[in-house]
């Protein structure tokens, strides 16, 4: 007999709000989020990209000036 792709339940159970509230834990979810969001320095940088924009701009500016100075000296 062909295996069904779905398990069809005609008498599904329903949960009360209290039963669901037992599983509600933002701090646990936040801990999982932090694990993924900050797993490497690069990910940390990405998370705060909007704060780092100015630093990145300064770094590019310094690199360009350094390149120009080096070219002038050479």
């Amino acid at each position, binding site marked *: 007999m062909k295996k069904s*792709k779905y398990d069809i339940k005609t008498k599904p159970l329903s949960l009360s709000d209290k039963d669901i509230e037992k*599983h509600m834990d933002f701090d646990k979810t936040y801990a999982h989020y932090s694990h993924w969001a900050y797993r490497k320095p690069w990910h940390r940088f990405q998370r705060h990209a909007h704060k780092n924009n100015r630093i990145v701009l300064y770094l590019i500016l310094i690199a360009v000036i350094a390149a120009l100075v080096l070219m002038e000296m050479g």
Partner: protein
Amino acid sequence: MNEQKASHNADEVKLIQAAQKNIQFFRDLYQRHYKAVFRFVYARSGNDEDLSADLTQQAFVKAMLNINRYEYRGVPFIAWLYRIALNEINLHYRNSKKARSVSIDEHTVKLFIEEIDDEFSEVKLEALKLTMSDQNEEVVQLIEMRYFEKRSFKELGEILGISESNAKVKVHRILKKLKITLLKKMQLLTGEKK
């Protein structure tokens, strides 16, 4: 009523913007939508409470990781959460190679069968189960949300990322096809019983 809805949406947009600036503010969105997302997952995970809790948590983690990409375009935030939860459910069942659960309560299934084929009978219910088990994921999702969860076409479109009219057309076509398949399965079942 519309004013109330508009103020609710404005309130939600503020919460989203706050969460985009500081993820700790996601707590309010989490508390607001957790139960609805949990129920959505629970109906699709074979009424397994622990699995539903895991998948719901995973869905919220994904939502938090991608909240900066979210743009409010008039679609309720919960629809975005449902879409993420649906992807998590599909991923789980694809990886575990188990059959995904479809919850249909007896009352709604009767109404559904009456809509496509006049009267309800036990044979028709068996035929519907057989018919559903052959369908692809998109068909099952549409039928499940439209008939067994009583969602509007607008909601359907929002969750599946299609327009309201497209959702209507799809459901109409699916019903047409389903009716033919259901009749065939019924003939098969009644033939077998004879």
